[in-house]
């Protein structure tokens, strides 16, 4: 596999901090020298390898004149290391590797050797990217973060935010609100205040005491008391110190309320409402006093604290994290690592599964996915919840136990309740509705490949899809890019009924390989899916498929590894530690940064891989390494 070749090439390279030193004219360390020579090598191979390949095989359709699929490789050749170009190269890598490109009806075809060389060269292109932490634009809290933050601040149920529109999570989010929706922030603030600080009660609530302090004694200076509340409440809700002008605005609101004959208490409440609809609360904003001079600046301590707690908890920093930011200690690597461990071991890190894990494993839509209810009456909401919780608890066990990420594939335990145990045939030994850890005696189970929630979401409503499962394993587990099916391919249902009579699903799916257009990809995809055919469309074990024919779960992975059962497939995939780890690292880094991985990030990932491989691919080590990485700690502002 190209992936492993790339990894070998790159593993020896040390990068991050070194470049800036070099650019400042400091004498080069050996690591820097190595990096510089990598760069030179990449430039040369680019000139000698990529350029002629692109001109010979790609530019006719993807050049300045014709830009099919919107791709112009001649433009990408001019600025090979730029972010926009790197998307081009990723696509080229996938398509050339799958023999999708150049198209088969083109006369000019590269030899296998040319093809492989081109792929190897693309792997070194990242060395041409300038050191860049990525553009970092202030962002609004997403729905989950907003609900959790209100919960943290006011003790209200996070579901109070449920009417806000859902965001598309991950690579890109929509940051626009219609006026009707922005009004929800005001409505939600009102509802949250009514819950947390009821006005009709003479006794201040616990939340009120926490935010407003003790009621002022008779005759004391109320406005001075309000000043103090504004400062502390602003610090808390804005997650950084308030500026004098922000303090001033909050006091204007207090004065407005007082002038309207509201009591001191009610006036503070209006001030709190203003805080809750302020952009300083809804956005994570820097506390710096002046516009930054350079393009790339380090995150200030408070921004770093927020970035960290929203990454791992999807909520605001707690008092310990905030105090460290106030003291300016957070950039100390030992302190930061300690905080990562503390945050991960806290129950709030469950948010990392809801925000990241569920998306990585493809379980986000499990609760709403359509199933053929006649065929699978088991797929009740209780079952779906249990499936989701199984994956959540399993993910949590690896995070909190600081286990190796290889355990995601080859663990020998899972989490079940009675409902879910019926799919495992374990309903006699696992009873009751509570989820608990259960050791798996059957080696086909345990790990994400044998997990019913995942087996169900990668199936059709009424049958399994070896193709979907194959794509899922390649993309979600091993991080390969699978090109989409060409347009206008018939679905299985459309096959001529005569030719497919008496064929099992596997045999029908194998018809792919007879069509050369399909075969390029499906010869890789399908066998992986066949390896999981013993699991039906909701994850139950079976020995026969729907046609009554015996399941044949043997196959071969790219690279010649053969398997004959889910157990053996698991073992092969678990052995590909590097691919597993790299995939998870890239995805988790993208989630942490809130943007797709491009250009220079690839070099960052190489570095992260080295760090975590040295510690047996442990999960907390991975998270710590991401948090202390260059793009997490810095930002480009223009």
């Amino acid at each position, binding site marked *: 596999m190209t992936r492993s070749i790339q990894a070998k090439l790159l593993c020896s390279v040390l990068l991050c901090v070194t470049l800036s030193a070099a650019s400042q004219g400091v004498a080069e360390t050996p690591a820097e020298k190595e990096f510089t020579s990598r760069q030179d090598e990449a430039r040369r191979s680019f000139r000698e390898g990529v350029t002629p390949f692109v001109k010979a095989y790609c530019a006719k359709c993807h050049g300045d004149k014709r*830009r099919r*699929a*919107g791709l112009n490789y001649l433009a990408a050749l001019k600025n090979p290391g730029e972010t*926009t170009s790197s*998307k081009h190269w990723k696509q080229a890598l996938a398509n050339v590797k799958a023999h999708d490109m150049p198209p088969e009806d083109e006369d000019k075809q590269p030899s296998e050797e040319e093809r492989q060389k081109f792929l190897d060269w693309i792997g070194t292109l990242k060395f041409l990217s300038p050191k860049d932490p990525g*553009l970092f*634009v*202030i962002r*609004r809290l997403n729905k989950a973060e907003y609900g959790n933050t209100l919960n943290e601040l006011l003790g209200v149920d996070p579901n109070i935010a449920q*009417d806000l*529109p*859902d*965001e*598309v*999570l991950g*690579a*890109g989010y*929509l*940051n*626009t*609100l*219609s*006026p*009707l*929706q*922005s*009004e*929800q922030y*005001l*409505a939600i603030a009102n509802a949250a205040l009514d819950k947390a600080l009821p006005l009709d009660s003479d006794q201040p609530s616990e939340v009120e005491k926490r935010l407003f302090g003790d009621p002022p004694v008779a005759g004391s200076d109320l406005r001075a008391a309000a000043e103090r509340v504004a400062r502390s409440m602003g610090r808390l809700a804005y997650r950084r110190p308030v500026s004098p002008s*922000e303090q001033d*605005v*909050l006091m*204007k*609101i207090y004065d*407005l*309320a007082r002038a*309207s004959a509201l009591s001191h208490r009610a006036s503070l409440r*209006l001030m709190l*409402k*203003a805080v809750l*609809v*302020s*952009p*300083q609360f*809804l*956005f994570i*904003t820097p506390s710096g*006093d*002046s*516009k930054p001079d350079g393009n790339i600046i380090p995150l200030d301590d408070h921004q770093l604290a927020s970035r960290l707690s929203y990454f791992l908890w999807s909520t605001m920093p707690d008092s310990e994290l905030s105090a460290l930011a106030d003291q300016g200690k957070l950039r100390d690597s030992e302190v930061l690592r300690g905080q990562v461990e503390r945050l991960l071991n806290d129950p709030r890190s469950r948010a990392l599964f809801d925000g990241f894990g569920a998306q990585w494993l493809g379980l986000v839509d499990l609760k709403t996915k*359509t199933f053929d*209810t006649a065929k699978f009456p088991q797929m009740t909401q209780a079952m779906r919840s249990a499936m989701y919780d199984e994956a959540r608890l399993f993910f949590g066990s690896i995070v909190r136990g600081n286990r190796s990420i290889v355990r995601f594939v080859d663990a020998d335990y899972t989490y079940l309740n009675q409902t879910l145990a019926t799919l495992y045939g374990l309903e006699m030994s696992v009873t009751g509705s509570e989820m608990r850890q259960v050791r798996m005696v059957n080696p086909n189970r345990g790990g994400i490949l044998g997990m019913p929630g995942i087996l169900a979401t990668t199936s059709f409503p009424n049958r399994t899809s070896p193709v979907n499962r194959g794509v899922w394993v390649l993309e979600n587990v091993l991080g390969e890019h699978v090109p*989409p099916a060409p*347009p206008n391919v018939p*679905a299985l249902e*459309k096959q001529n009924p005569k030719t497919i009579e008496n064929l099992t699903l596997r045999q029908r799916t194998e018809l792919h390989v007879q069509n050369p257009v399909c075969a390029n990809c499906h010869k890789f995809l399908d066998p992986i899916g066949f390896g999981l055919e013993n699991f039906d469309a909701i994850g139950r074990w079976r020995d026969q498929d729907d046609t009554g024919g015996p399941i044949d779960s043997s196959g071969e992975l790219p690279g010649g590894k053969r398997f004959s059962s889910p157990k053996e497939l698991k073992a092969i995939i678990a052995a590909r530690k590097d691919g597993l780890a790299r995939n998870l690292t890239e995805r988790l880094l993208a989630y942490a940064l809130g943007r*797709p991985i491009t250009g220079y990030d690839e070099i960052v990932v190489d570095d992260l891989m080295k760090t975590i491989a040295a510690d047996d691919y442990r999960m907390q080590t991975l998270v710590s390494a991401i948090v202390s990485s260059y793009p997490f700690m810095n930002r480009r*502002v*223009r």
Partner: protein
Amino acid sequence: MRKNLLIDRRTTLKGLGASLALPLLESMGWAEPGREKSYKPPVRLGFMYMPHGVIMDQFWPKSADSFLTEPPPALESLRPVLEHCLMMKGISGVPISPFNGAPHALELSTWLTAILPDADTRNRINIAISADQIAANYVGALTSLPSLELATMPQTHKENQEGLHEGYYSHCSFRSPTQALPAEINPRSALSRLFGKTDKSGELPKTDPLDRKMLDLVIGGARDLRRKLPRDDQHKLDEYLDSVRAVERRIAAIEHRQKEAALEKAGVSVSKRNAADSPPIEIKIPEGDRRSEYMQVMCDLNVLAFQTDTTRVSTYIGSTPNGVSYPELGFNDQHHSQTHHGNKDSEKIRKVAAITKFNIDQFAYMVKKMHSLKEGDGTLLDNCIMMWGSGLEDGNKHARENLPFIVAGKGGGSISSGRFLPDTKGNQGDLLTTLLACAGIPLDRPIGIATKQLPEIRG
């Protein structure tokens, strides 16, 4: 240009960015009929969308002559109001190359923009302001809500065909080339925020008179933060502050209305509505999860918003291209899964036809309701332009040669309805340009790929 607005363009534009102290209803004619004889209710513009195209021989009328007497099966529920409907065949869609692999993202995102996303920045939202938002820019300041966006499913589909941003898959309204406008999918919160109403009796939503002044201070207070931020950050902040400004304005409008209602109730002033106009319709939020009821309550909200002049522009994504099923029709298949029927699979064809009819039935429900409501000398529908359509003609082949459209309403007399025009020559941009012109929206340039207006639509 028809003069159906009693306020000039300059005043309107001035009102757009600024935060207005008091609602404009009073100064702008509509709320004060009777002052001059030529007074007319405003024209409202609504769009309702269905993905995946139609079964052509069940959708297109046989001929111009038989349109009223023998409507096609898909239009059966529109029979009582066919006199008020206009259909035209020959409206072509934007050619989607180089995005051939993303027909469904494109059928929706080009629907009201009539133009393709920018190919070089396809992984971000970068397309064009949509026709509904162009209209909202012009008439939006006259009402408490500039435009209304409704949908019946979360707009979170995650698919990046052809490298396109996910947002293209579930949005058709764009506030600017780079801002996709999300739609409201919860009828209860739409009801409360649009009309300050709840469907539970005895419960009155509060409007805090201090909220408006407080928001004003919050917006002013962000100025200092804004100054310190880099340019890209400032843009993000501005988007939010703009929307808060709109909230401020809406609160002012609701306050004004409540004051008016109180005065009327106390007998101090008389209603400014025409005495003969129908009273505002009641909204009942359905309890169950029947898709027809869900779609209909969104229709009701649209009707009420138009009837009360809360907005004059609406866009209703009846369903997005991904993942809707229609159990009420007796099958659980998702819409898209049935559309590649190869013109052979009669079972799938039957299901697609049923889904299409189901969607048109909901549109018919809405326009029939509008037709039943008196307004001025006629009905609410007379003063509306309600466009129903799909982004494909034929979901089987993703064909876009003759996009299916139904236009209901006479647009205040600007549209000649009750006709089928079988040989229209134009594209979806031409149609949108014409409909906006009929609604009295002045355009400084054609919409998307439009090159002309379609005079045959006009009365």
